[in-house]
């Protein structure tokens, strides 16, 4: 049981576009979203961008539909790697809550599953997966708590990409048996977002079981966040205080409990 999350909303320089997507996400019932910064070192030498501070996007975060809490926004970095040199974990990576890699070759896929310090491995959705998934690396990734990300926007945009998405996802499911999958949108506009229950249902088309499909938009995403936090806090040795967010709550709480005591006395 966990809140619904969409860990892939494509970053845009157009702030209005971004806010409208995040507002839609909140309206559809997602409690957490991640803005995805994609860099492709292959195409051009790209600096690792500095993520926006999420508080710049909204003065007041939109409330999640049917809840009393505002939506939580995270930053995610995705590196499209076609060569081993493309993935260099530097301090720049640490500015992001989540780090993902999209390996283009079998060798890199193996490395990503077994060694790379990442939270998410992306699966091809707009083209045929150029290699077969093998059990050893996939199991390795599962053991390390790394998750595979399937984004569904390509499947909404175009018929042939839809075939690739379904085919690649089905292939992956046959190997990973539905474990460690997250389904995210990869949306670039708000009409490409779909509700969490819709995605849980779509998971069945990708070959997931009902429970695994719902986990792919909820509990598995939470595991990814925890993995991201442990990566940031030196393999989880210091993991007692969750986030400043909880601290605030505790501080807020104190006067209330005092008040309560005085009243009951």
């Amino acid at each position, binding site marked *: 049981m966990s809140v619904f999350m969409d860990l892939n909303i494509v970053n845009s320089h157009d702030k209005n576009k971004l806010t409208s997507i995040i507002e839609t996400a909140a309206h559809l019932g997602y409690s957490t979203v991640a803005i995805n910064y994609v860099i492709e070192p292959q195409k051009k030498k790209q600096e690792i961008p500095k993520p926006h501070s999420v508080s710049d996007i909204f003065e007041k975060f939109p409330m999640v539909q049917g809840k009393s809490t505002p939506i939580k926004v995270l930053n995610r970095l995705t590196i499209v790697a076609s060569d081993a040199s493309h993935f260099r974990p530097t301090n720049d990576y640490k500015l992001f809550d989540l780090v993902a890699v999209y390996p283009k070759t079998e060798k890199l896929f193996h490395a990503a599953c077994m060694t790379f310090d990442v939270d998410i491995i992306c699966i091809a959705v707009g083209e045929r997966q150029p290699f077969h998934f093998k059990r050893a690396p996939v199991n390795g990734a599962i053991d390390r708590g790394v998750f595979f990300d399937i984004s569904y926007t390509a499947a909404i945009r175009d018929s042939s990409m*839809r075939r690739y998405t379904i085919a690649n996802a089905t292939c992956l499911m046959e190997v990973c048996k539905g474990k460690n999958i997250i389904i995210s949108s990869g949306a670039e506009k708000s009409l490409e977002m779909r509700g969490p229950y819709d995605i849980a*249902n779509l998971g069945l*088309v990708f070959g997931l079981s009902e429970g695994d499909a719902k986990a792919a938009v909820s509990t598995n995403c939470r595991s990814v966040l925890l993995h991201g936090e442990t990566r940031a806090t030196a393999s989880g040795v210091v993991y007692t205080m969750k986030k400043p967010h909880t601290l605030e709550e505790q501080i807020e709480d104190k006067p209330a409990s005092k008040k309560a005591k005085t009243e009951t006395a």
Partner: protein
Amino acid sequence: MEEPTTFERHVYKNASVYHYMKISLDLENGKRSFSDAQFKQLIISALKELYGEVGAAFPFDLLKFDPSSLKAILRVYNKGLVKLWSALTLLGSYQNEACAFRVIQVSPFLLALSGNSRELQFGESLTS
């Protein structure tokens, strides 16, 4: 008058033949006019794209359609629920205009669609 009836209890598991869906259609350029037949045809075309002629032949009913809000209630055989739902999910455009089906509620009981407690909202004016 009939005699008072005797106690009887029956448990039906998965005996409902249908599932019911409450949906609405969002379009990029706001609302446009749809007839109920066009609306149903749009859903059939979504089914046909994803599941081919076999999928398009699967019967479902457009029980209710409100052209002003583009909201509708569908009835579908249990077996076709996942397919119909996923076809709605993956429909991305209508006549080159981006669109999205939003699924509001799904239930094996039509009666359940008339009482959605998630619709219970209190206006901000009441809360201040």
